[in-house]
């Protein structure tokens, strides 16, 4: 069981009655991660993979140790883990690196974050690839038959989100991966909203690529990772090349390195990667199972409370069976931005409002072009905070809508 009071002491941001319910956008960062990053800047501040002197070797060792820790969190090998800025960069890397051509098919879904949607529309624009978009119902559930019909022998890649950043609905990744592989297609998963919140095993899921954001899992901003299956690493072209990505360079030739280093051109975000490694360590010590159990308890409170408030329309699954702690809702007669401002001004509660970078879902499925309010729970939130949130929301619905 998670000791939330003890965990909250690690997060310096939590003070003065602040209630942070926007971990879907970015999470808070605990002191152990901040200290680890400062330790790099104070004690062994040098470049990695370049110098021969002791301090540089130490920096390289810490950087690669961080890679091991992060890879371990998702049961990947270190040579399958690329350090990037965020999920968006990982998704772009794959979209641009797998050699898409005219006539290749891409299958994605209507639930995607823009970072896993417009990259494929751009491939369609630039390369003439075909994009098929699988729709879902208002609860965010997919019909696997739709995937089976959409994926054909011409499908080059199926790219889906693991957890919707709007609805919190879980996508059946294992089943979709099976369909994709049976028809010879690759599968990529946007795991930005799943890696921070549950135990992820890339081998069990059977995916080829998996992108996630370090800054959503108690790591620093500017840190993220991309898992590339070992057998595919050499088949993916890097997005950027330059220093640190080559084995040899001549006047008229260059030879790209093997392994994840080929995707990390130039001086990497060293402190960020080391911080991300410490975040992976922090979460592992607490236990991903404990974190998801804690979130499940809070999610149940929140869902039950939201459904009881008159005037509130909850989007997505109305049970916690295939749902995480992300809640999108609207209050009749009041704009989502006004709700968010009211919560912030009255009760120091921080939630997101708007379209959440998922316009196709908001427009076509939910019919909420103006956006919705989104609240999300994480390991540092408490039942008391959920109660305060529900009380404030009830007052807003009663008096301001």
């Amino acid at each position, binding site marked *: 069981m998670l000791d939330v009071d003890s965990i909250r002491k690690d997060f310096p941001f939590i003070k003065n009655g602040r209630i942070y319910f926007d971990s879907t956008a970015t999470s808070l960062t605990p002191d152990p991660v901040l200290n680890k990053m400062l330790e790099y800047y104070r004690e062994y501040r040098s470049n990695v993979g370049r110098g021969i002197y002791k301090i540089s070797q130490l920096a390289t060792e810490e950087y690669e140790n961080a890679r091991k820790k992060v890879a371990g969190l998702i049961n990947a090998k270190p040579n399958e883990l690329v350090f990037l800025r965020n999920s968006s960069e990982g998704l772009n890397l794959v979209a641009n690196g797998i050699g898409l051509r005219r006539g290749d098919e891409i299958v994605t879904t209507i639930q995607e974050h823009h970072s896993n949607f417009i990259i494929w529309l751009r491939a369609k624009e630039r390369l003439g690839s075909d994009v098929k978009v699988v729709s879902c119902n208002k609860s965010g559930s997919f019909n696997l038959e739709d995937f089976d019909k959409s994926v054909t022998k011409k499908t080059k890649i199926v790219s889906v989100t693991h957890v919707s950043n709007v609805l919190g609905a879980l996508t059946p990744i294992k089943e979709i991966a099976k369909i994709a592989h049976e028809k010879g297609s690759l599968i990529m998963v946007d795991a930005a909203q799943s890696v921070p919140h549950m135990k992820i095993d890339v081998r069990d899921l059977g995916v080829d690529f998996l992108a996630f954001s370090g800054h959503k899992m108690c790591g620093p901003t500017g840190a993220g990772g991309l898992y590339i299956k070992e057998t595919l690493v050499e088949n993916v072209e890097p997005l950027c090349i330059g220093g640190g990505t080559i084995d040899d360079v001549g006047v008229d030739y260059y030879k790209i390195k093997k392994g994840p280093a080929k995707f990390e051109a130039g001086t990497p975000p060293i402190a960020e990667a080391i911080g991300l490694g410490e975040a992976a360590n922090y979460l592992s010590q607490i236990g991903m199972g404990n974190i998801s159990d804690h979130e499940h308890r809070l999610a149940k409170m929140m869902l039950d409370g939201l459904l009881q408030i008159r005037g509130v329309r909850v989007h997505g699954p109305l049970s916690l069976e295939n749902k995480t702690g992300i809640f999108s809702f609207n209050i009749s007669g*009041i*704009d989502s*931005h*006004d709700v968010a*401002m*009211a919560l912030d*001004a*009255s*009760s120091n509660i921080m939630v997101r*409002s*708007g379209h959440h970078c998922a316009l196709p879902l908001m427009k076509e499925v939910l019919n909420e072009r*103006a*956006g919705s309010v989104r609240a999300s729970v994480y390991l540092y939130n408490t039942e008391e905070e959920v109660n305060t949130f529900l009380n*404030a929301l009830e*007052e*807003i619905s*009663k*008096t*301001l*809508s």
Partner: protein
Amino acid sequence: MTSFYELYRKFPKADCGYCGNASCVTALRKYFMGKFSLDECLYFKKQIYNKGDFTEKPTRKASPFPPGIRYISPCPSDSSMVTAEVSLNSSPDQIDYFDFITAEKIFGYNYGVMKISPTLGIARFEVDGKAVMAFSDGRVLVRRALDKKDAFWQLRTSIRRLWAAVN
């Protein structure tokens, strides 16, 4: 006993701010609550009821004109529009800058519907179709303004309409 409106009729309604209250309505409201003496009012002290008849020019202690407007562009609601926010409150400890119950009555009588939550310290209303929110800490915020100029005028109008409710 003199009623509120009978007494209010005798005021010049100059909203000069001399007594430290932002408006004559606020001063009268406090008078009826026993928190204000008519001796504090320049006009009643000199028994002058016409704006132009005073010999001392009152020093305004409060102003309905918005200082220091913060513009947010693009507006979170619509990327082609502007949000503007201003804080009228210069005392960070004062959390009851507006009397929303009075605001709702005056606004409702003159301009339309104002939704209020005294518990949360928030008022919501519209000015020319633009959503406006006022908060008990003295902030006023307008969204979906066409541009900065439009945002300024909506804020100014909103503040004027709220002025009688400033504590």
